[in-house]
């Protein structure tokens, strides 16, 4: 697995680590200024996650969709594309998995569960393919089209639930247990958290992204097109096809993230009037994880830890939960600004090597 990290040198590794530390420090300063005890706050985060199985379980549970969304963003980044549409792909994946689970509820678990997961991935794939096709065929910039696809997904899923899968409480019915990823075993292990088997799906996805990009010919092509569409074209690769493929695969990861929420965490889908935010956090996770699969896994763990720890921070130290979002924003800010520093550095050194 050391291969996973070989693409980055120590300097680039240092940047996210420092950013995290700086983000936490700035958060501490803000807490001090407002009059909260930062040590107690951070202590309650760490203690709850590592010492209380419930919060540990909830953290891992929250990590599942975040990691998958992060992988989706990182994958498209690797091929030179910016997939802002993870949010929408996640929502259609969520609905598709839930719809599949409900409508084919008579099937045995061994068929229904994989089928529902596949349905989520497939819906995400479709939602990713459309902007990919628009980009390859009509040169529509993927940032624009994926943002628009997010809104289409938001309102389409709401419409579909309302008209075809509606039940009281502004949501779909609960999925049959044959399609559920939830596990009494994991729940008992973690004092009743919502931790579910989706974690295995997420880990497989981490491995899959690494294997696909660095071990297969398709991945070679995708990376090549990402780095240099011109040279790839000259070498006989189809740039258009790789763009579509890249966003489609990215969409699969995002769709799976939705399926994990639908089949694991919630067991249903609510009509939402706003985005889940997981897709957008996925961008931050990918950025912090340097777009490497292992990095995304670690960054996803950190973010979900902060988010869940933030809840106990509120309960134990009385620190408003919003502060966690400020800290996350600060971390991203520092990652962003260190990219600027690194960029300047690399420009200097590149000139020197000539």
């Amino acid at each position: 697995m050391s291969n996973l990290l070989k693409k980055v040198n120590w300097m680039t590794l240092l940047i996210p680590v420092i950013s995290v530390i700086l983000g936490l420090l700035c958060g501490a300063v803000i807490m001090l200024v407002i009059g909260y005890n930062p040590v107690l706050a951070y202590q309650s985060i760490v203690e709850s996650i590592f010492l209380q199985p419930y919060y540990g379980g909830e953290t891992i549970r929250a990590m599942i969709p975040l990691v998958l969304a992060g992988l989706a963003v990182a994958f498209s980044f690797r091929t030179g594309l910016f997939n802002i549409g993870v949010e929408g792909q996640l929502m259609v994946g969520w609905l598709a998995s839930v719809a599949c689970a409900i409508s084919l509820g008579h099937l045995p678990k061994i068929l229904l569960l994989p089928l529902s997961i596949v349905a989520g991935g497939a819906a995400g794939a479709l939602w990713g393919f459309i902007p990919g096709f628009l980009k390859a065929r009509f040169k529509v910039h993927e940032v624009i089209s994926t943002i628009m696809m997010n809104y289409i997904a938001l309102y389409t899923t709401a419409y579909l639930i309302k008209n075809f899968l509606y039940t009281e409480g502004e949501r779909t019915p609960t999925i049959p247990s044959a399609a559920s990823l939830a596990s009494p075993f994991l729940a008992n292990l973690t004092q009743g958290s919502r931790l579910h088997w989706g974690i295995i799906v997420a880990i497989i996805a981490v491995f899959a992204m690494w294997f696909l990009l660095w071990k297969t010919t398709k991945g070679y092509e995708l990376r090549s097109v990402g780095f240099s569409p011109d040279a790839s074209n000259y070498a006989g690769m189809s740039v258009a096809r790789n763009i579509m493929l890249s966003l489609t695969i990215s969409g699969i990861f995002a769709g799976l993230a939705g399926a994990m929420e639908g089949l694991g965490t919630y067991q249903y889908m609510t009509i939402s009037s706003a985005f889940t935010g997981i897709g957008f956090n996925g961008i931050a996770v990918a950025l912090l994880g340097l777009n490497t699969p292992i990095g995304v896994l670690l960054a996803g763990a950190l973010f979900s830890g902060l988010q869940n720890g933030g809840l106990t921070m509120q309960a134990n130290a009385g620190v408003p939960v919003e502060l966690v979002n400020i800290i996350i924003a600060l971390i991203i800010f520092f990652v962003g600004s260190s990219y600027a520093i690194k960029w300047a550095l690399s420009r200097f050194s590149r000139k020197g090597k000539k």
Partner: protein
Amino acid sequence: MFKKRIAVLVAFVVVLGSILAGCGNSKSSGNSTSTKKSAFKAGMVTDTGGVDDKSFNQSAWEGLTTYAKDNDLKKGTDVKYLQSTQPSDYSPNLNTMVHQNFNIVYGIGFLMQSDIQKVAEQNPKAQLGIIDAVAVDKSNKPLKNVASITFKEEQGSFLVGVVAGLTTKTNKVGFIGGINSALIKKFENGFKAGVKAVNPDAEVYAQYAGAFDAPDKGRAIAQTLYTKGADIIYASAGNTGNGVFTEAKNRAKNGKKVWVIGVDKDQHDQGMPENVTLTSMVKRVDKAIYDVTKQTKAGDFPGGQVLSFGLKENGVGIAPTTENVSKKALDEVNQYKSKIIDGSIKVPTTDKEFKEYAATLK
């Protein structure tokens, strides 16, 4: 050059970190999460609207703080709220309070229904409450350890409908709902029934924003309805309704007098200084929370019961501020109020019931 800078940075981080850790150790020794077993503790988990949503989250918190004041409980420890920033936070937040041995934990809003149900099943000893929903187990029976608190919003809406029907000059009034759901339909149908009861010729435009947290949409819809000729809009849409106030104030500034009917709380202040709030349909979440908390303290936790707060229980009604409401309208309101309480009028809650009701008027 850069390396040096990093080194300095790291050094800074380490030093600051150890200082913080140092001062932490001295303090944290005194602190522990264990609580005095004797004290009574009541907590609530907000939905994503947050505790200062000027609506039912805020109202619920007011109920708890009033109770705390009356019973010498400490705010922040004995009575406490946890905010949720995303739907997936509901469950951990509820669990946290249960684990911290709160004597009662309220989930504010029907969005928390399935989370409450799960937490209630996993923690049979916990005592929970939910607003605007009925918590049931898998066989659809009410859960023994959850108090389900519901309101007869249609009754309060009927009364503000009466006010609107008697106040409108254009004979057109508007209704803006948050999300089109069974709950908000109760508001809409109650309101329409009230309008029609006193003013059968008046037209009621009803429209839904699709969101409780979108003031911009609320404003846009208000613009449409006012332009269509409505001079009163009943906004039952949470934070979305704040956009309706914005639009009404804007029109008032330009010399066009239009009214808004507020919801959940007395929203008179919200309409100032242009004074656009005609009246408000108050939903006394605070009172319900106060009552249930009091019962729980007294050892009469109403678990497994579906509590329904209506006009009779003073759980809903029109706002105490009545300066913009005519004497005549107030009289009518009081008459209808007693008719509803004594059961001679049954206020419709669904579209179907409203149709049947409308038929009786003709």
